[in-house]
């Protein structure tokens, strides 16, 4: 009897987990696409979660919608378009390259270029700073003093 209860207790959590969105796919590629998509779509209610992570009602609905579309054989582009037409570019975790996101995509490279430029100028200036600022006469005297020490 004890063994039976333990078995049930062991299976229970697993079956409960399986209850959340038990979607079945007729093609393993569709399942891969579905899993990829729900990681790429942002839940607009709980803004810093993708719809795979979120259990908000809206995220559940959007997962269902994504599942329906994937199961119908729609491709990635179609689903992302569908979502962004309704919820705006905001739902896409990876912003698309377009005029208003240009700075977002190019910005880091511009900053990198500025960094390289500043660094090069800094390195070029280095030899000048390395000179000890002694005139040749002073240098001779210094050398003499050093020799005497030895």
């Amino acid at each position, binding site marked *: 009897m004890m063994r039976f209860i333990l078995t049930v207790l062991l299976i229970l959590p697993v079956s409960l987990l399986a209850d959340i969105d038990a979607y079945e796919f007729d093609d393993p590629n569709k399942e891969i696409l579905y899993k990829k998509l729900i990681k790429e779509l942002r839940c607009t209610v709980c803004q810093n979660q993708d719809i795979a992570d979120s259990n908000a009602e809206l995220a559940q609905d959007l997962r269902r919608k994504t599942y329906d579309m994937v199961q119908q054989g729609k491709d990635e582009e179609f689903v992302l378009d569908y979502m962004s037409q309704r*919820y705006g570019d*905001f739902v896409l975790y990876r912003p698309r390259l377009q005029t208003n996101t240009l700075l977002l995509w190019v910005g880091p490279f511009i900053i990198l270029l500025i960094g390289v430029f500043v660094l090069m100028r800094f390195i070029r200036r280095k030899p000048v700073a390395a000179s000890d600022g002694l005139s040749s006469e002073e240098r001779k005297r210094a050398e003499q003093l050093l020799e005497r020490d030895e």
Partner: protein
Amino acid sequence: MTRYLLPLGIFIVIVAFLAVGLKLDPKHIPSPFIGKPAPDFNLPDLHNPEKSVSVKDLQGKVWLLNVWASWCVSCRAEHDVVKRFVARGAAPVYGLNYKDERADALAWLRQLGDPYEASLIDYKGDAGIDWGVYGVPETFVIDHEGIVRHKQVGPVTDEIIENTILPLVLELKAAVPGDKGA
């Protein structure tokens, strides 16, 4: 001199960016529908489910779509504002009863009053997805050509009616041929 001015300049630029960032409301997501045709739906009427209403039926008039649900607490707070707006007769308000049980929705309207021209049942939330609804209540203003002109996320207040929605509705109604305001 530049040695000191440069870091100060960079500092000011960063402060300016952060100051603007602080004022932005991350909950406000611009709707992609503004200026675009309203997404169509054809949904049963809450009071009379055999009858259905579609967006096309409403073409030719300026109207509001108010997304509500009996489980939504801020809809309750907003309801009086909607009633006051409808009482002024500026434009009809249609309700989108979002993911609600019909009995609960009917009880809610009985208790709080029903200002809606009609409330449409969106039990599964599909119309909500088509309209990009993510936080109830939401309110849309649609013009006589079926173009979405405004979206309000969250409860409408008297202030928003007075400053934004009513002036917009009157302006849109003035543009309707053969209809000279309320």
